[in-house]
């Protein structure tokens, strides 16, 4: 019994040792991933502060002024309201753009006529700056939700359609044949073949679409809306409040980073679990 107890405690100690080793390795990996980025942010902040002290101008506010502005918009709840309004428009615009891009991307990948038919539209869409969509939609739809949603959809659909089309073209035709032989129905093919196969293209397309969407919506809000981050930035610009402009930019950037790391990367990791398990 004593022998058993010794063995068990020995095992426990070895387990704890191994666990500590794994934790330390994880910590080192996390530090290696995060520290360079943090170092860049610290150097940028230091350079900004040095520039602010040297110029001594309200056009280059120091970190304290920016921090005060950030505190103000956060504590007043203004940041949540405006960022929420902008995000709501982005989500609706992304949804509309995704539906259009999926239809165009699918058709372009599967049909030669559709590919030639949509090619000029995609080329035009990829080259037209978001600013043009923002201006046109403000002119066409005025001060309404439709303005931002349609402008975002027009801005993102071409890039997303190209990503989806490339993903579908890259699907192994041998798997398509296997799905045909085993008579998978449309929804089964979509679920078990098409979506998993085009996932990498879809994820990179959605990331690109998200970054484009936020640039377009801010322009729409600057030109024609009375809420959102763009509106807040414009207010700061009109009153020459550079600290407010920087504070709003920082606040929204944090939200964008949280969506990238918290949503896109988590979803991608979850959906590509099989790749990691395949390597085991």
């Amino acid at each position, binding site marked *: 019994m004593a022998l058993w107890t010794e063995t068990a405690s020995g095992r426990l100690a070895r387990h704890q040792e191994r666990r500590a080793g794994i934790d330390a390795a994880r910590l080192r990996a996390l530090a290696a991933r995060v520290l360079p980025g943090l170092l860049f942010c610290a150097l940028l902040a230091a350079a900004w502060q040095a520039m602010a002290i040297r110029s001594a101008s309200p056009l280059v506010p120091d970190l304290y002024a920016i921090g005060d502005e950030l505190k103000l918009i956060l504590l007043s709840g203004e940041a949540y309201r405006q960022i929420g309004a902008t995000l709501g428009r982005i989500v609706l615009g992304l949804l509309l753009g995704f539906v259009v891009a999926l239809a165009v991307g699918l058709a372009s990948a599967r049909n030669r006529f559709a590919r030639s038919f949509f090619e000029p539209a995609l080329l035009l869409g990829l080259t037209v700056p978001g600013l043009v969509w923002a201006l046109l939609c403000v002119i066409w739809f005025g001060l309404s939700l439709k303005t931002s949603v349609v402008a975002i959809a027009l801005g993102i659909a071409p890039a997303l359609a190209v990503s989806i089309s490339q993903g579908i073209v890259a699907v192994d035709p*041998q*798997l398509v*044949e*296997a799905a*045909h*032989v*085993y*008579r*998978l*129905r449309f929804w*089964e093919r979509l679920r*078990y*073949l098409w979506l*998993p196969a085009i996932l990498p293209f879809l994820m990179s397309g959605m990331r690109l679409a998200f970054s484009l969407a936020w640039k377009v919506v801010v322009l729409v809000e600057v030109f024609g809306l009375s809420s959102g981050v763009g509106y807040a930035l414009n207010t700061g610009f009109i009153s020459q409040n550079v600290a407010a402009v920087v504070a709003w930019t920082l606040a929204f950037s944090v939200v964008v980073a949280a969506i990238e790391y918290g949503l896109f990367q988590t979803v991608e990791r979850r959906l590509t679990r*099989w*790749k990691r*398990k*395949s*390597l*085991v």
Partner: protein
Amino acid sequence: MSALRFEHVDKTFVRPSGEREAVLKDFSLEVAPGELVAIVGSSGIGKSTLLHLAAGLEQPDAGRVAFTAGRAPRLGMVFQQPRLFDWLTAADNIAVAIHTAGGDVARAQEMLTAVGLGKYAKSYPLSLSGGQRQRVALARAFAIQPDVVLLDEPFSALDELTARKLRLQLQELWLDHAPSGILVTHNTLEAAFLADRVVVLGGKPARIEKIVDVSEARPRNADNSFYFDLHRDILATLERHAG
């Protein structure tokens, strides 16, 4: 009565250069219920085209491919490569095919056990060896309780030792399920060992040069000299028609 019939089938392919190449012309062949017919012939002669026509992956220009009782048959197919969905586990790859065929998905585990991969049910294809993946593909083809199984050089990408094991595995599955089928292969010894009849194709468009009956009951012994004699006979026919 036949399980599968090619009736006066014509098939012509158009090459990228615009040149037309007649692969099959007035081609007819019957596969009896429970029979496995092996098709051998030189590369590009149209062996795989026959399987693609049977699987509905290609349509004949003339003639037809008919199945028993006129209803849509359950088709199982094993390709040269396993063609599994890498993002689904071994069991799920089989379960999807069973579900589509309207069967009980619990059979996926049974079939994996039958091909010796019971403990790999939750493994993803890329974590399995080539032989194991091909066994999953075999299990998928038989899991749907097929009327007809189409085998397109199923063991040609494997080393001989693994291929030998899988041939025996295929023989067991054939005994358990008794479907009808076509095996396309370059390996004449494999054809002699597995098939009930070996059809030797030659010429262009392809025609049947010779049919060799393998009147041996299953289970068969792969080391029986009878199959080596047949293999030499088939090979001699192939060499004669290859010029």
